[in-house]
């Protein structure tokens, strides 16, 4: 697996404080990477740097060797989709229209009905097809998050007509989802990684992160503490140092997840 995204010495300041402070990172296609860390560790900032939304004060992110800031927005939109933490809409768009935003102006050789098909398939995939004609503003927080997931999936599907190698960024994608949809969304994300996409998510739930990630990236105060397979990262001493809590990590390979407070 060659590196799709390569970050070197990333630094980002805001208000005189370094939110991300000298991070080096490579991300490959086909891998599900989850960024973890306590509040204010710089997880979301790192994600926004990696997807090109923020320009680093120092260092650079490269996509297949090409500097991210030099890639025009429209081309970047074919290569990667980003699911934000929360998104308000002040206008009465329908759910179908929101998902369709992922296909407007993206893709090559797509007819209008192709785009509509992609949007509808994405809605099905995110389990919100039944909400298609509803006004987005009347949805619950969890439903909104799933609609945005559908929008992101539609964007990837449309972008695939132009770019073979894609990445998916998820910023706390399951914050307001119920358990069923948490597992479904992360399962879909992992399937995408299996299909060759680079999938990068910020997650608070260490248990889910440990179960699903191919690789964990642990951040603390803007710095990369350690990265690697879940069992190499989630060691009791590291968790105690970074999160300030004492946990007992125990491997239960047969169980998809476990709910055991330490």
């Amino acid at each position, binding site marked *: 697996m060659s590196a799709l995204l390569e970050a070197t010495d990333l630094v980002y300041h805001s208000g005189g404080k370094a939110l991300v402070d000298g991070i080096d990172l490579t991300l490959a296609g086909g891998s599900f990477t989850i960024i973890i860390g306590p509040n204010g560790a710089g997880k979301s900032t790192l994600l926004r740097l990696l997807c*090109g939304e923020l320009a680093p004060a120092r260092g650079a992110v490269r996509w297949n060797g090409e500097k991210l800031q030099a890639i025009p927005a429209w081309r970047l*939109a074919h290569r990667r989709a980003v699911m934000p933490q929360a998104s*308000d809409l002040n*206008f009465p*768009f329908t759910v179908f*229209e929101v998902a369709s935003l992922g296909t*407007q102006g993206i893709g090559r050789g797509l007819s209008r009905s192709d785009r509509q*098909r992609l949007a*509808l398939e994405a809605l099905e995939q995110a389990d919100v097809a039944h909400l298609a004609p509803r006004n987005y503003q009347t949805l619950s927080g969890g439903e909104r998050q799933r609609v945005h997931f559908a929008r992101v999936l539609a964007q990837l599907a449309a972008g695939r007509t132009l770019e073979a190698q894609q990445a998916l960024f998820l910023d706390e994608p399951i914050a307001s989802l119920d358990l069923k949809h948490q597992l479904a969304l992360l399962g879909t994300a992992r399937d995408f990684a299996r299909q060759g996409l680079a999938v990068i998510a910020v997650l608070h739930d260490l248990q889910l992160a440990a179960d699903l990630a191919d690789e964990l990236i642990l951040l603390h105060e803007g710095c990369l503490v350690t990265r690697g397979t879940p069992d190499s990262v989630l060691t009791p001493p590291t968790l105690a140092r970074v999160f300030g809590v004492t946990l007992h990590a125990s491997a239960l390979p047969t169980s998809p997840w476990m709910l055991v407070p330490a």
Partner: protein
Amino acid sequence: MTSVALQQGRVRAGFRESRALLLSALAVLVLLVSLVALGLGATGVPLSRTLSIVTDAVMGRTSALGGDGLIILQVRLPRLLLGLLIGAALASSGALMQGLFRNPLADPGLIGVSAGAALAAATTIVLGDALLAPLIGPLPFTILPIGAFTGGLLTTLALYLVATRNGRTSIATMLLAGVAFGALSGAVMGLFSYLSDDRQLRDLSFWSLGSLSGATWAKTMTVLPFILPTLLATPFLARGLNALALGEAEAFHLGVPVQRVKALAILLVAVAVGASVAAAGMIVFVGIVVPHVLRLMAGADHRMLLPASALLGAALLVAADTVARTIVAPAELPIGILTAAIGAPFFLWLLLRRPGGMAL
């Protein structure tokens, strides 16, 4: 998959049909309102006669025109066209501004852009008379749209800069800043009216009340090149504004050149509002009422909203102008009074029925 196919067919057919239907219905409305506006007034002209006069004029047969023909071609037609242009410009500017600020309550009149444009026009009248007239003689009308446009542009930019921190535009700050700009330009207008002579005073009250009276072919033709490009360019912003509704970061993720879309929208609003204010003074609330009604009727997609706003705005302003010039005939009500009298209660109703109360 059957359900998907079914739903797909329904959604697609529904969208296309309703969009085409709405736009054609609005175009017919514009046509009807225009015919009524041509016929109504101090001298009533029957519909059949109106039609034959207009067709005669279009065919170049002007010899057979009587007095009613002159009234229609020289008085009502330029006024009708000016009304259509300005109504379309104001409503489109409202829709653009609401898309730009991601808020259905933004309006060029409400947040002080029109006030800035009117102030610049008033400055041109009062100071231009005093400073430039001795040098170049009577000022050409063209200088007013340019002055008003500059005023509108500067106010829009100032509002945007004040309200934007770290790439995020605060709607609350923008509205408050708009109030401050409005008050400031009100104060300067007051100062001008204190300083000005009788003729200038009458001109100033024209700016602050808004009116389509005094429309001539020359005036209409001067405004046309300022408003037409704005109307033609708005559809190209539709996709960008749709994505921008999700937020600036989200629009960027979707591949929209956010800064370019924002700059173009600001420029178009300033040009259209500046030209409108120069020709007809301040006419408020058209920009907020029209897009809102259309969103209730047909949803928020800017690909539909922008052209539909232009059409409904044109029809609404011409209808309001027809009422304004017939209701107290032979005198005339300034149209700004009429739109404010209808628009202000509508705006209050809008605030009251918003879910979540008064949060900005």
